[in-house]
C-alpha cells in the first residue's frame, strides 16, 4: 500500500514500506520550467527533516529540495542526473530524486495528503 504525502515546499514523499521516495511535485516542475541540472546527495548521508537534500536547477532558477522526512539516503536516481528532463516529463514517477529510509514514520503525519495538497495549491493561485 503506497501513499504520497506533500510539503508546503512542494516536495513529495511516496511511502513504500519503510522507504520514502522523494521528488518534487508536478506543480513544482511546472513552476520551475525546464529542469537542466540536478544535484543529488551521496548515498549513505543521514538527513534530518528539512535538511537540504538535493538541488534542482532550471535555466532561470535553482531550488533546494528539502528532505520531507528524516532518515538515511539509500538510493538516488541516476537517470535524472543524465536526463534532467525526466523531472518535467514525469515528476511523480521516473523523475524521482532519492529514497530515504524512514527514521520516524510518525513524521509523515505532519505532511499533507494528496487532497490537502490539492487544496493548498488552490490557495496559491
Amino acid at each position, binding site marked *: 500500500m503506497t501513499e504520497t504525502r506533500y510539503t508546503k515546499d512542494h516536495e513529495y514523499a511516496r511511502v513504500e514500506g519503510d522507504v520514502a521516495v522523494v521528488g518534487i511535485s508536478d506543480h513544482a516542475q511546472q513552476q520551475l520550467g525546464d529542469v*537542466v*541540472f540536478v544535484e543529488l546527495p551521496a548515498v549513505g548521508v543521514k538527513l534530518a527533516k528539512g535538511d537540504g537534500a538535493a538541488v534542482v*536547477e*532550471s*535555466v*532561470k*532558477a*535553482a531550488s533546494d529540495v528539502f528532505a520531507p522526512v528524516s532518515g538515511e539516503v539509500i538510493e538516488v536516481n541516476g537517470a535524472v542526473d543524465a536526463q534532467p528532463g525526466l523531472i518535467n516529463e514525469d515528476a511523480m514517477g521516473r523523475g524521482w530524486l532519492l529514497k530515504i529510509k524512514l527514521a520516524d514514520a510518525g513524521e509523515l503525519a505532519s505532511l499533507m495528503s494528496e487532497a490537502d495538497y490539492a487544496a493548498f495549491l488552490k490557495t496559491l493561485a
Partner: protein
Amino acid sequence: MRYLPLDAADRAQMLARVGAPDIDALFADIPAAKRLNRPLDLPGGMSEIEVERRLTRMAARNVAAGSVPFFLGAGAYRHHVPATVDHLIQRSEFLTSYTPYQPEIAQGTLQVLFEFQTQVAALTGMEVANASMYDGSTACAEAILMAHRLTRRRKAVLSGGLHPQYSDVAATLGGMADEEIVRLPLDPHASEDIAAAIDDETSCVVVQSPDFFGNLRDLEPIAAAAHAKGALLVAVFTEAVSLGAVRSPGEMAADIAVGEGQSIGNALNFGGPYVGLFATRLKNVRQAPGRLAGETVDADGRRSFVLTLSTREQHIRREKATSNICTNSGLCALAFSIHLTLLGEAGLRRLAALNHAAAVDLAGRFGAIPGVDVLTEAFFNEFTIRTPRPAAALIDELAARGIVGGLPVSRLAPNAGLDDLIVVAATETSTPDDRRSYAETLAQLLQTGGKR
C-alpha cells in the same frame, strides 16, 4: 548642461503629468532633516575644453611609459597594441551595451565571448574558459575558492614565486573566510620544495610561471604531487604573451589556469581595468565562477549564443552562488580577443619570440656589468638581477636619468630581505638603443657609487 536634454519647459510639463508641485515633492521620502538644502561643495560645471585642460595638466605630470626606455613588468606589461583594437572596442554597440541579458539583440557581445572563451582555452591548454574576471589577482583568489569547493578542503598553499600582491589578495580573502592560506617564502631562485608543503588537508597549490621573478617553472611534477594528495594545481600567469612561447598550464596538468590578460590588447592604465583569464577542465565547470557564453539555436534553428549555466551566479543562487561577481571585464576581454585574432597563432609566436629575444639581449648586457648578477636561468621576457647597492635607490636614480628600470622587489615585499633585487622586463617595445642605454647607465651608476 550638455549631457541633460530636458529643459525647464519639459520639466514643468512632466511635473504636471506626474502631479507633483515641484521636483522636491518627488524626494519627499528623504527625511526632512537629512535633505541637502545647500549646494554641493564642488566646483561648477565645466565645458569640454575646460575639462580637457584640467585633466591634460594632470596627465602631463606623469611620465608615460612610451616616452622613456621602459623595463617594468611585474604583473603588467607594455606591448604594442594595433590601432585597430582601440578603434573597434569604441564601436558604440560594444562600448555602450550592457551584459547580454537579452540575447536576441546582443549576439555581437555573445559571439565575441564565445570566441574569447575558445581562445583562452586554447592558449592555456584547458578545456573551457569563462567570459573573464576582474583581473589576474582576483581570478587567482576565485580559483582558490573553487578548489575549496571541488575538494571540500580549506587550505591553499601559495608558491613563493607567486606575485606578492596576488598572495596578499588571496590571503585577505582567505583570512576573512576562515580558510588557511600557507604562503611559502619569496623564492627568487625557484628552489622551493612545494611538494613537501602539500598534505591531506590541502585543497590546492598555487604556482605561477613565469613566476614573479621571471623563472619558468615546470609545473608537471607539482601537479603530480598535488594530485597524489587529492589536491589541485592552480597555475597562474601574469604575462599572457609568454604562452606563445612556453608550455601551457594544460600541458602541465593544471586543474585551473588563471592569469592576467592585460598584456594582450590592453593598455597599462596604471593598473586597471585589466582582464582576468580563468580556465579549467570541463568536469569542473559547474563550480567555476563568472559568466559563461554557450552555443544554442533560436526558434528558427539558427546558431546563436547565450549566457548559460547562470544558476551558479549570485542573482539566482544568492548566498549559495559560486562567487559574488556580477560584472566581468567585457570590454577588456573584447580588446584581448581582437588583438589575439589579429596576431593569430603565427603572430603570437613571433611576438613571443621577439619578447624573449629582447630579454635575453638585456640579460646578456647585465651579465657584463661587474657586481650585477642575473639570477634567473630559464626565463621568458622578465628576469631578476641582484645589484651591489639597494635596488630601490638605484631605480630612483635611473628614473632621475629618464629610465624606468624595473621593480625593486622591496617595494612589494619590504621586509623580505630582498632589498638588492630588481625584477626587469624587456618586451618588443624596447629598442636595442633602450637596452644599451639602460645597461650603460646602470654600469655608470654603480661605478660612481650612486652619488646623486
